[in-house]
């Protein structure tokens, strides 16, 4: 029986050859083809839930590359020292702090952007309200307020959270995950998605490692297991330990991006 109007047509042509039209019901004459869209049917979709975010991320990435800008996405728990490291990086940046742009995400307050501006960085605060992470369209909007050509380095400081931000590509060239020595050596095992996605893992507050009984070997071992290809840095903003190595790494990454860019330009002619 037809499941749409209840008429006696059956699906099997062998069992019953029904007329294609029927006019015995109280409704308008129709063919069975007109029922097709009313029958429950399956649509194959296979679309990523983050497809729109990924489109914005690619646009951001293209903008960074066009300006020869090295873009970083900083992820960590709250209090791991993201803002302090960006401050210190801006202070010692070769071209001057005004060549360092920062987009900083927090649920509330302008405090971090003000801290970063006080050392000369070009900082924009995104207050996300209740959102636990930055998304690529938020970053795209912030970028429209910045003169990207005047910058060498763009740091996106994500909302302090090791879960949700890991899922969102913002268009960065390198993703850095910070782990402070007070947080526990097994954090890379507890938050595999974040650490798996890291290009760089930075151990921060190394100056108090001994005081808090930080097991460095175990932490590095866990990082190596979860992110075997990541570059690992150990540093302290307070003592300056490891900062030079970190900044040299960034300069080298920026040069390699620019070298690739000029290579593409040569090829395109």
């Amino acid at each position: 029986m037809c499941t749409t109007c209840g008429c006696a047509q059956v699906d099997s042509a062998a069992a019953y050859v029904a007329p294609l039209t029927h006019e015995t019901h109280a409704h308008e004459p129709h063919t069975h083809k007109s029922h097709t869209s009313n029958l429950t049917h399956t649509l194959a979709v296979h679309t990523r839930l983050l497809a729109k975010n990924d489109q914005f991320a690619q646009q951001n990435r293209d903008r960074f590359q066009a300006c020869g800008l090295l873009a970083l996405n900083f992820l960590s728990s709250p209090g791991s020292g993201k803002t302090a490291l960006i401050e210190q990086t801006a202070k010692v940046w070769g071209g001057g702090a005004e060549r360092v742009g920062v987009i900083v995400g927090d649920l509330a307050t302008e405090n971090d952007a003000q801290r970063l501006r006080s050392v000369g960085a070009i900082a924009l605060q995104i207050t996300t309200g209740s959102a636990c992470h930055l998304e690529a369209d938020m970053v795209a909007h912030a970028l429209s307020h910045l003169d990207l050509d005047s910058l060498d380095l763009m740091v996106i400081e994500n909302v302090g959270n090791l879960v949700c931000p890991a899922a969102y590509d913002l268009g960065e060239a390198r993703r850095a995950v910070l782990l402070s020595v007070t947080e526990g050596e097994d954090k890379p095992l507890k938050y595999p998605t974040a650490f798996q996605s890291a290009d760089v893992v930075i151990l921060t507050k190394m100056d108090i490692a001994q005081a808090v009984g930080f097991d460095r070997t175990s932490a590095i071992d866990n990082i190596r297991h979860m992110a075997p290809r990541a570059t690992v840095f150990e540093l302290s903003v307070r003592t300056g330990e490891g900062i030079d190595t970190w900044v040299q790494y960034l300069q080298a990454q920026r040069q390699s991006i620019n070298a690739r860019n000029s290579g593409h330009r040569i090829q395109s002619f």
Partner: protein
Amino acid sequence: MHEVGLMENALAIALDYAARDQAHRIHKICLRVGALSGVEPEALRFAFDIVTQNTIAEAAQLEIEPCPTRCYCAACQTEFEPVDGGYECPTCRIWSAAILQGKELELASLEVS
């Protein structure tokens, strides 16, 4: 808790496909969710009930197909399913970063009428 935002994305994609098919009701939404996607299926279900209210997907069934993590070990050239969040090959004990499956987060299919 970004599952509400993700489910809003899923619903937007579903409504778009349903509209193009001239469907008037969505009966089922099937998602594929990888173990490494950072998404909690129960939180997705909670979000689903909220975001589908007053839409053609209200009362639809949400089907979540879990995708376990699968890695590839280059040393012994086999696939394996890691345990305890680590990526150690159970055969040769080497850690692998080659993830074949587990990051999926997609709207696979819809049932509409």
